[in-house]
């Protein structure tokens, strides 16, 4: 079988068609539709055989090919021959040509990527690229309008940091949310507060996740509160004053 080439590398029906055209050295401007339809359908059978995921896009193209093929088989009317006759293949050819152009553009980008992949810039601090002259100076004051997403974002930062040293062995550790709640309360005790990221001095994933769940629970039960110093800043945690009589 000659068809055992990089099946997974086809980027769709157009790519497959281009491949078939090239394989059979067919002129893109004069496609023998019957032949190519046959080849294309054979390919689809093969994809099915290998149980590869085949999107409806491939089927749609098969239908298009068959439609063109049948159109070309229809006898031409005399009147049409006199005027400009539209080749039923024309639309497909244009699509192939356009796709091929962008495939080439992708190739250009790929080459650029090769050249740039080993150059490192300072990592951008959260989307600062768009700083413009009329931008407001950063508000250093504390903002209270934080929501769960802000917390999750901070959580992700901590998790990302941990991932560097992530230990792949799985240990069964008994980490209960209750223990972590106690831990957080202990850390906050007798302090004005502390930064979210400083809660996590132990760096294993289960502990961090336990911490986070505990934190959510403490916030829910209003034992602690949190604030953010500015839009992209650190989250500041502190004990909620129990000045109401509900407790």
């Amino acid at each position: 079988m000659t068809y055992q080439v990089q099946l997974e590398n086809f980027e769709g029906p157009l790519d497959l068609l281009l491949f078939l055209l090239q394989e059979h050295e067919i002129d893109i401007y004069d496609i023998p539709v019957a032949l190519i339809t046959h080849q294309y359908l054979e390919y689809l059978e093969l994809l099915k055989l290998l149980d590869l995921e085949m999107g409806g896009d491939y089927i749609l193209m098969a239908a298009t090919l068959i439609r063109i093929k049948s159109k070309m088989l229809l006898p031409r009317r005399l009147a049409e021959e006199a005027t400009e006759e539209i080749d039923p293949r024309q639309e497909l050819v244009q699509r192939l040509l356009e796709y091929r152009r962008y495939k080439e553009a992708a190739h250009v980008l790929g080459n650029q990527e090769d050249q740039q992949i080993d150059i490192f810039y300072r990592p951008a601090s959260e989307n600062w690229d768009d700083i413009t002259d009329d931008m407001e100076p950063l508000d250093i004051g504390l903002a209270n309008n934080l929501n769960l997403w802000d917390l999750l974002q901070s959580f992700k930062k901590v998790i990302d940091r941990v991932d560097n040293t992530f230990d792949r062995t799985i240990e069964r550790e008994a980490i209960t949310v209750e223990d972590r709640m106690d831990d957080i309360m202990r850390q906050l005790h007798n302090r004005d507060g502390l930064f979210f990221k400083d809660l996590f001095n132990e760096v294993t994933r289960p502990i961090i996740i336990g911490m986070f769940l505990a934190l959510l629970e403490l916030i829910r039960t209003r034992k602690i509160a949190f604030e953010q110093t500015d839009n992209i800043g650190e989250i500041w945690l502190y004990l909620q004053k129990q000045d109401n009589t509900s407790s």
Partner: protein
Amino acid sequence: MTEETQFLEYKSIIEALLFAYDAPLTLKEISRILEDLDEHVIKKCIYELNAEYEEAPHSFQINDVADGYQFSTRVEYAKWIKRLYRGHIPSRLTQASLECLAIIAYKQPVSRSGVEAVRGVNVDGVIRTLLDRNLIRIAGRGDGVGRPILYATTTDFLKYFGLNNLTDLPRIDELNDLLKDRNIDIEEEEAEEMDHSLFPKPQTPIFERDETE
């Protein structure tokens, strides 16, 4: 201050600015900070700084990228930096991502279905990946049915591919020549004819910069 020491001072200031900033800094911005210093003087400063880094030699350089200047490491040190980041360096883009990006780069702003029309396959997943990697952004909504979301490339896109601006990419009609260079059969006469019908040559640069939107 003599002219000479003045120039050295400028050089140091520009070095400090670039050192402190984590995105490409434009000539315009540097000039504004230095009270309308001539952009040619700035260019000269950067040129000399780079010469000094090379002479030293240092492991970094000032890169001319995304219509601005930014410090980057030299390729020779990639190996070590990769060790620093371990698995955290984003992987190379897949062929699907590259094709999708190419279409967006040339057709922007373009809707998802506009991209799909060229590729002939669903691009939902790819678009999401590209958004996640900040290589494309949502540039607004189109006028069509359902007011589709339109996508455009970002500054990070330029940085990622080491481009100064979008016009650094070959023009769409130049791609045929590239195809020919790579020995992919294409019939010159007809190809040229197709060019004019499919992609009329624009009078002005085909791209608008991000800022103009």
